[in-house]
């Protein structure tokens, strides 16, 4: 088989006019600079360095409370860092500038490479160089048979080994067989780099159209909530998401089961919820690592706790019951919290409300009260011997001041300024069903607890794109790193009546096995 190579493309003509527009030249030079491998390297470095501060400083999107604590601990430094986006590193303009430049460089690099590669895939392996013995691998020897047969046999052998082969006739009558293999390396490399772009697009989609919200959900029908922003303790919406567009559903916690090892280490958590408003009503269980997948939202179980149920009966005999979630502060679920009764001691006849007769309780709930004092910390996370240790307060709770306070804690300022007084110096331990009569004859009863679950409700429409991108990225990476681009040439000539075969080989990517492979090929078909 004889083919004629098309001549190589002529070199690009010099820019006409001698001097190019300086602006165009500047843009062109900057682009060339940006898309160079060295720039890519520098930008990769910058990206690594820029990611560091975010692991040292607390980040708002990871732990807001730690940022607040940092502001308290470093009142001078924190505002300066904040102005430099020190607490929002990964959404900061300077971080974005680096990765956008990097991806600019990437695109500028891979678009021409894709063009070159498709061209290379269609092109034939290049003709043999003049001196095969100058190549890193070479050999020569005599063969039996006519040159055309020998060349055809070599051609067939290479084809059989899935090389791309072309046989040419040189002007001096010699037959040359050129073969190349390992295009998959560059294909893989391009897949890898394009996948990086796909992953970035997926991340962007997620940050624009994704949203998340957190909610502490206490068991019980009256504690159920529906998916709207007012119902959330904390939330974040992507730039393209409006609060009105959230998918409709309502959740009620109907059960919560936690199991523990004897050491108190948790073994499993399972929450059961009634789902309504999103297609057919149903009951679903979900657990850590096994989220509840609804259409347009996923519900994750992050943690759990106990909400003591407390009933207070005031001076007029009126009772109020509150279910107050207490936050656990150690592995044994010692939980802290407060229960406030702002609307008590209202004279039923006059309706007059004495703001100084508001009542509140603060303290710790112990799911397992230890056998021995001090009774300050729970001995086991499950409710083996539950008890609640409370201090009673009376006075003005400060709820009308307009300053939002924590529901887990009484307003410390009111206690400090004497408007809210602690009734007894020591806390009172209540077991389930017990009641406690205060100095004014009012009573507090501890009715038991209800479990609560802390939930994270999230939706990230970019996730699938990122997943697909990552899978392609890995496949491309492996092809690229394992691939071996290599070329071999054979020149078949005659000298008198003998046929001589010269061969040469070139491994275009580093790999040690080529010597053996070349030796095998150079021996020719058996």
């Amino acid at each position: 088989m004889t083919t004629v190579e098309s001549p190589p493309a002529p070199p690009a003509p010099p820019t006409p006019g001698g001097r190019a527009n300086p602006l165009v030249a500047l843009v062109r030079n900057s682009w060339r600079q940006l898309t160079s491998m060295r720039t890519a390297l520098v930008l990769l470095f910058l990206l690594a360095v820029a990611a560091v501060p975010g692991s040292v400083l607390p980040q708002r999107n990871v732990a807001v409370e730690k940022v607040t604590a940092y502001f308290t601990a470093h009142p001078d430094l924190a505002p300066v860092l904040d102005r430099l986006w020190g607490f929002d590193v990964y959404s900061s303009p300077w971080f974005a500038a680096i990765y956008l430049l990097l991806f600019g460089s990437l695109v500028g690099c891979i678009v021409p490479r894709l063009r070159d590669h498709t061209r290379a895939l269609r092109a034939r392996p290049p003709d043999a160089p003049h001196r095969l013995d100058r190549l890193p691998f070479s050999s020569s020897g005599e063969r039996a048979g006519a040159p055309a047969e020998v060349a055809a046999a070599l051609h067939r052998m290479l084809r059989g080994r899935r090389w791309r082969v072309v046989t040419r006739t040189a002007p001096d009558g010699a037959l040359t067989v050129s073969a190349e293999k390992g295009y998959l390396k560059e294909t893989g490399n391009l897949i890898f780099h394009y996948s990086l772009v796909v992953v970035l697009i997926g991340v962007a989609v997620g940050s624009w159209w994704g949203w998340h919200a957190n909610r502490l959900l206490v068991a019980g029908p009256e504690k159920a909530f529906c998916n709207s922003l007012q119902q959330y303790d904390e939330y974040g919406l992507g730039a393209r998401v409006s609060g009105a567009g959230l998918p409709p559903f309502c959740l009620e916690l109907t059960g919560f089961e936690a199991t523990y090892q004897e050491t108190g280490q948790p073994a499993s958590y399972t929450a059961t919820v009634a789902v309504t408003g999103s297609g057919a009503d149903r009951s679903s269980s979900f657990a850590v690592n096994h989220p509840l997948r609804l259409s347009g939202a996923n519900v994750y179980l992050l943690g759990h706790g106990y909400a003591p149920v407390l009933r207070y009966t005031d001076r007029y005999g009126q009772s109020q019951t509150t279910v107050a979630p207490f936050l656990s502060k150690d592995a044994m679920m010692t939980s802290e919290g407060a229960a406030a009764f702002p609307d008590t001691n209202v004279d039923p006849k006059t309706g007059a409300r004495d703001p100084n007769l508001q009542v509140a309780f603060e303290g710790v709930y112990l799911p397992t009260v230890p056998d021995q004092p001090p009774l300050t910390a729970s001995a086991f996370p499950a409710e083996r011997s539950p008890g609640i240790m409370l201090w009673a307060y009376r006075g003005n709770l400060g709820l009308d001041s307009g300053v939002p306070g924590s529901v887990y804690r009484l307003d410390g300022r009111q206690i400090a300024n004497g408007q809210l007084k602690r009734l007894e110096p020591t806390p009172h331990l209540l077991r389930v069903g017990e009641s406690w009569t205060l100095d004014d004859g009012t009573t507090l009863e501890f009715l038991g607890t209800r479990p609560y679950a802390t939930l994270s409700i999230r939706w990230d429409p970019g996730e699938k794109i990122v997943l697909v991108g990552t899978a392609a990225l890995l496949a491309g990476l492996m092809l690229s790193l394992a691939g071996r681009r290599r070329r071999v040439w054979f020149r078949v000539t005659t000298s008198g009546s003998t046929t001589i075969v010269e061969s040469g080989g070139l491994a275009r990517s580093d790999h040690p096995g080529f010597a053996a492979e070349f030796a095998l090929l150079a021996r020719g078909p058996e």
Partner: protein
Amino acid sequence: MAALSDQFLVVTLLSYLVAMICHAAEYSFGARGVIAKAAVRELAGAGGPPVSVEVGADGPAGVPAGTAPGRVDRARLAGRAAVAVTILGAAAHLVTLVSRGIAADRMPWGNMYEFVLTVTFVGVAAWLAVLARRTHLRHLGLFVTLVMVVLLGVAGMVLYAPIAPLVPALNSYWFAVHISMMCLASGTFLVGFVAAAMYLIRAGYDKGRRSFPYTLGARVPGAEALERLTFRLHAFAFPIWTFGVAAGAIWAEAAWGRYWGWDPKETWAFISWVVYAGYLHARATPSVKRSTATWIAILGWATMLMNLVGVNLFLSGFHSYSGL
């Protein structure tokens, strides 16, 4: 079982220590240049200039003039003993891991102590695998065992945690995939780091530097072979690391609702990934010197160490394992 694991940790550590001493003995017995001047076989390389690859000291290398044969024999003996003791240590290491896993009734990857134990085991296994095919690299053993002794020492003394079951969040299929891949990649990067460091030392020695640590370069394999080994180890570990990070992200999605949250451990995994990508790039860029590229690999290992130990001790995040 738990006690057995702890006892075998001591055996492992002592074995690596002994292996290190044997390697050191081989170093000091072996006269300068026995290995460095070992016969050089021409092996044409990848399109570039022909590459020389050292043939092992146990191979057909002639004993250079001026070297007492007795010393060389003793050196060889010490070197072989070092490898034997390393294999012994690796066996004890495996027992440490397996008995720990049996005692805990799960994969032994629940906390930092177990993680470092696994990473170092993978490192030793990778090292022995390299050694089986390239005996001429044996002198690197001194540095491999040194790193193992240091890391296992830190694991035993600083990171040690009693056996505890996995917290529910860690009890997942993807977690097992994630951690095993991270261990495998970290262990390979660890050996890659040793090769990289030795390459830099050897390259400095070849340039005529004679101060410490370049003096160590006298008896390690040729710079070219070390550089290639460095690259191959990193090229092997990088996709595994990538897969491990991806598996971690899949697990994080199921456990915490987001595949990526810039928690300090995730951040440092990302930093290592970017630095190692930088290394692969630098090595593929002809205008970047091989020694510069190798320094990037060294930096990569520094970021790995930061993640393995530093983040757990200094920075807190979601990843704070049960034991620390």
